[in-house]
């Protein structure tokens, strides 16, 4: 008797807890907005979530958003994320995400696939002004989901003091792989390695297009990772590493190529535009110049990196959010961002002004002509991570074996 009563009590209590919990849940989650509400007029303040590279970027974005807020009359606030992916994911799950936010290429497809992103790109007024290569990175199912924010390309950064000390002149600036190998050899001296870069495909992958290779086919449906061209490229990188004329920054005890370069552990590095800000902040005494990456057997090649301004599908005020993005990607705003924190404008109309304003970065901008983007299909980020893991031991592995393995993985990912 007593036992049944206790049991009933427990069941009752459990039911109460369950009901409470479910009601709590109901307020925490909201069902995704039905599609087709994109054109509905919205209202309310706009919240912007950014993953900032530092004080300069935060200040620049904040003042740009404040300016827009003043002219449009819509309230807007900027928050800096400490862990962008986690905060975005939480926002999407709760149905109350930030309205406008940074989206990286490797996160993009996941958020586009689960419907968190509003595919607003095709209706932007300045849509055709974006570099086609950048816009392509944010295409999903044939739709431009979000506007490229800005971009950077990889180039060869040379320490001019070490260059001169090794007896090299302007005529020796490498224009092909042989030139790079011999320059690296001449620059390797005691504690200084000729060339250093991070042990990841986001640097080493720049050699792929130079050999005529790519990561995925033009239509993005077939993996092309283990092509003979890529094997040749990776073989070249391996030969530099085994010669000791090139080293991974991690093997030099540096966190990335820029650190190895700044500390004088290497005379050259392969890095993007961001290295300028990092060097002037941490190693202001290092004299350097930036040139285009040397061409391979099949011509020039580099990689580009970009983010986009995502708008949440669950945003309460999508029209205003879109206006804000139009303003932030306008030629004038982007020149302002370039001055503030050293990125390159994602719109072609800003190219001329950028070039005259930053002549030292002409090489990076030139790279935009032929730069490739790392694959951004759903699941591709995982394959890239796996490739990076394998590249850590490139010195002792067979390039073909590495590429064969990731080819299988990439094929499986693209087949989904």
């Amino acid at each position: 008797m007593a036992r049944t009563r206790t049991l009933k009590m427990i069941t009752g209590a459990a039911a109460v807890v369950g009901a409470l919990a479910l009601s709590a849940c109901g307020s925490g989650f909201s069902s995704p907005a039905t599609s087709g509400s994109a054109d509905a007029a919205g209202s309310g303040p706009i919240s912007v979530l950014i993953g900032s590279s530092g004080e300069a970027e935060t200040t620049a974005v904040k003042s740009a958003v404040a300016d827009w807020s003043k002219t449009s009359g819509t309230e807007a606030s900027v928050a800096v994320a400490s862990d962008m992916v986690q905060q975005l994911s939480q926002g999407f799950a709760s149905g109350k995400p930030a309205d406008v936010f940074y989206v990286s290429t490797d996160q993009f497809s996941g958020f586009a696939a689960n419907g968190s992103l509003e595919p607003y790109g095709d209706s932007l007024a300045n849509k055709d002004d974006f570099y086609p290569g950048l816009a392509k990175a944010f295409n999903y199912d044939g739709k431009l989901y979000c506007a490229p924010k800005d971009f950077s390309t990889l180039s060869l950064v040379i320490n001019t003091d070490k260059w001169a000390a090794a007896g090299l002149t302007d005529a020796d600036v490498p224009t092909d792989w042989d030139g790079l190998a011999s320059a690296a050899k001449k620059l390797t001296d005691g504690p200084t390695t000729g060339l250093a870069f991070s042990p990841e495909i986001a640097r080493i992958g720049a050699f792929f297009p130079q050999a005529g290779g790519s990561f995925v086919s033009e239509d993005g449906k077939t993996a092309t990772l283990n092509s003979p061209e890529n094997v040749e490229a990776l073989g070249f990188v391996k030969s530099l590493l085994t010669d000791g004329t090139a080293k991974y920054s991690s093997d030099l005890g540096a966190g990335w190529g820029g650190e190895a370069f700044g500390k004088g552990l290497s005379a050259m590095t392969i890095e993007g535009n961001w290295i300028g800000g990092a060097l002037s902040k941490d190693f202001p005494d290092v004299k350097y110049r930036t040139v285009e990456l040397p061409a391979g057997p099949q011509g020039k090649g580099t990689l580009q990196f970009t983010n986009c301004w995502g708008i949440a599908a669950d945003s309460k005020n999508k029209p205003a959010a879109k206006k804000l993005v139009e303003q932030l990607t306008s030629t004038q705003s982007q020149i302002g961002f370039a001055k503030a924190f050293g990125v390159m404008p994602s719109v072609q109309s800003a190219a001329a002004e950028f070039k005259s304003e930053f002549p030292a970065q002409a090489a990076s901008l030139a790279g935009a002509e032929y730069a490739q983007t790392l694959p951004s299909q759903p699941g591709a980020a995982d394959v890239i991570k796996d490739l990076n893991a394998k590249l850590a031991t490139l010195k002792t592995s067979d390039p073909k074996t590495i590429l064969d393995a990731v080819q299988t993985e990439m094929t499986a990912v693209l087949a989904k």
Partner: protein
Amino acid sequence: MTTALQLLIRRRSGIHGRQNATGWLFIAPVVIILGLFLALPVAMAAWVSVSDWTGRGSPFSAATNFVGTENYSAILSGGGLAERDFGTALRNNFYYVILTVPLQTALSLLLAVLVNRRILKGRGFFRTAFYFPSVTSSVAITVLWLFLFSASGVVNKLLALVGVAGPNWFQDPNGVLHLIAGSLGVTTPPATLASNTLLGVSWWEWLSGPSVAMSAFILMAVFTTSGTFMLLFIAALQNLRGELEEAAMLDGASGWQRFWYVTLPMLRPTLFTVITLGLIGTWQVFDQIYTGTQGGPAKTTLTPAYLSFSTAFNNQQWGQGAAIGFLLFAIIIFFAIIQRLILRERTTVPRRKRFNPPPPKGGTK
């Protein structure tokens, strides 16, 4: 009939009935809080692990479908990257557990015995010093560790003093057992080990041992947790009665015998607690990986807990992420049961542990 009815009435209105109701009233806050923050999230995660929830909106909405064991089979037998990552994470964490738990238990017991000695001067100082790493945040210690174990860090400088060229700790993906095998001349794996796989990872890879990077994490775990467990052991040691020790002394037992046959058996409950907590803590290692290496180099510090996080948050594979969480739970339960079986109280003292082995019985055996 009447008696039953009377009984019912008496129970309803009786003093015990009220007591029951009052009892429930008192524990209601805890029941509600536990239900809300423990039972319900667990139930939700269980649902997510068998659903195709994409991370947008409520997992209970109509857009989310039941997919059965699809997420689990992708991890356990999918043949793809998900399976291999899980296998790699298990391998890494297994070596982490198998080295950290015995080391930290032994060290904490040793420290406890040392600082528990009455003749030791400045016991308070040593207790505080040994306990200090435990009260420091694991993130701060990880950052400290990254500096200490960097390529040109203090640890390598010290090693250089004795003529050893230290490894580039957190960047070195080589397995310790592989390195030992390499020094013995075995650099290429035997064909059977290389071709046969478990969870997508070849046997040769399973036998790699912890990577150099993971070894640094193991040292860190021993360093940080020994203080906590030392405290548990000190508490237990101070509860032990001195008479037994004296009796053993009178019996002529040496210091080592007294520790091994008297003190240690009486510490068994604490030992059980320490090992259980150690097993749970080490299988769930996350903060160090998140702040330190994010699974690198070459995925050799990837652990199931971190893999679960990155699968869910970074790849938007929420079902698989939740499934990894439940598999991790199963693994922890499994190991807890195993060690319970090993450490359970035996009613008879094994012959080898007796002070005075019974004289052999006469006659043939």
